[in-house]
């Protein structure tokens, strides 16, 4: 993958995705925007991050994947106004979650929280697969 291809990958992503942590090198999380900047500057870190994109890998183990996914969800949900907006059509007591309530579920690793966290890991793979 050349620098131009990393740039093309970056440009295809939504504005929100560009600033969410996606790749981990030596325990530090990098966003697509930071990645592109490092690749443009031709740094060793940039080469490492570029290689991760080529391999469609986050550079993490399974535990770090979960942490990364939760970080991303926090970044997304914290921007939202605190009102019920995420609803499941479940059972006789329908549940509507505010962003903070959903974050509590995610942090507590409840069944609902795990559904969001596991989906986020799949979503990260989808983002890395954008070409």
């Amino acid at each position, binding site marked *: 993958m050349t620098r131009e291809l990393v740039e093309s990958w970056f440009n295809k*992503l939504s504005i929100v995705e560009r600033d969410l942590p996606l790749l981990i090198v030596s325990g530090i999380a990098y966003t697509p925007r930071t990645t592109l900047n490092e690749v443009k500057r031709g740094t060793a870190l940039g080469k490492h991050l570029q290689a991760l994109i080529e391999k469609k890998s986050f550079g993490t183990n399974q535990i770090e994947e979960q942490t990364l996914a939760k970080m991303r969800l926090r970044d*997304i949900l914290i921007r939202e106004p605190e009102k019920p*907006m995420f*609803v499941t059509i479940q059972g006789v007591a*329908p549940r509507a979650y505010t962003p903070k309530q959903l974050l509590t579920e995610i942090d507590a690793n409840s069944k609902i929280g795990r559904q969001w966290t596991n989906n986020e890991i*799949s979503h990260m793979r989808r983002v890395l697969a954008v070409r």
Partner: protein
Amino acid sequence: MAKPNSFLIIEPLEHYLSYGSCVLHEVVQANRRSGQTIIELVGEEANPENVKNNLQTLDVGTVVGVGHGNVNVYTVECTEELVRSENAEQLSLFKGRIVQLNSCLTAQVLGPALIAAGAVAYVGSREPFWLYAAEEACASRAVRSGFLAEYEFTASLLRGATAGQARADQLKRYEQEINYWLTGEGKNHPNAAEVMRILEMNLDVSTFLGDETATPTTPARKIMAIPILLVGFVFVGAVLYKGMR
């Protein structure tokens, strides 16, 4: 199988169900074909007794409904129970029909029970089905997107597809909606991140059971054959009339 070309659409409105029902109504109106019998039960009309009466008297080939659910139960307006997996009489209402229950969790127990009781095909969710309710129902693409993907199954059936083709169309529409928010025209919408995640989760838990070859509508070519036959009769009649003169 029950009567082809006939559809019962269950559209409750309470408890956030208007978010699904308004899109379902749009999808039905946009994809219906001449010669189809379509009954839409909206709001209070979508009560258990009325749904049951319509199922028994009209003997529809396809039943589509949005409603709150659990592993073994599907409910209609005001979360009133319509069918439970332990109730053979309720299950028998769906015998011979294609069934889409847009609800949470029913694919775990209720869906398989419906198939075991003779339903031809079933589509539903094995985990919670999510909807995005930051705006009023049907107010924007963001709140409609998840349902547009889910009801592509119904849209495709109305257009004459088999259950298997309709399922393929539904999965394709899910991918199209996700890509609309991820890299497409909707990517810079302020709610794109939330909407695409909801689509991904709903796609992940979506489940199809039953006969992929089942067809809810009579193929269009049979309907097209009627005018051709009429023209033929007129032609033969004209020839005979001319011969008699």
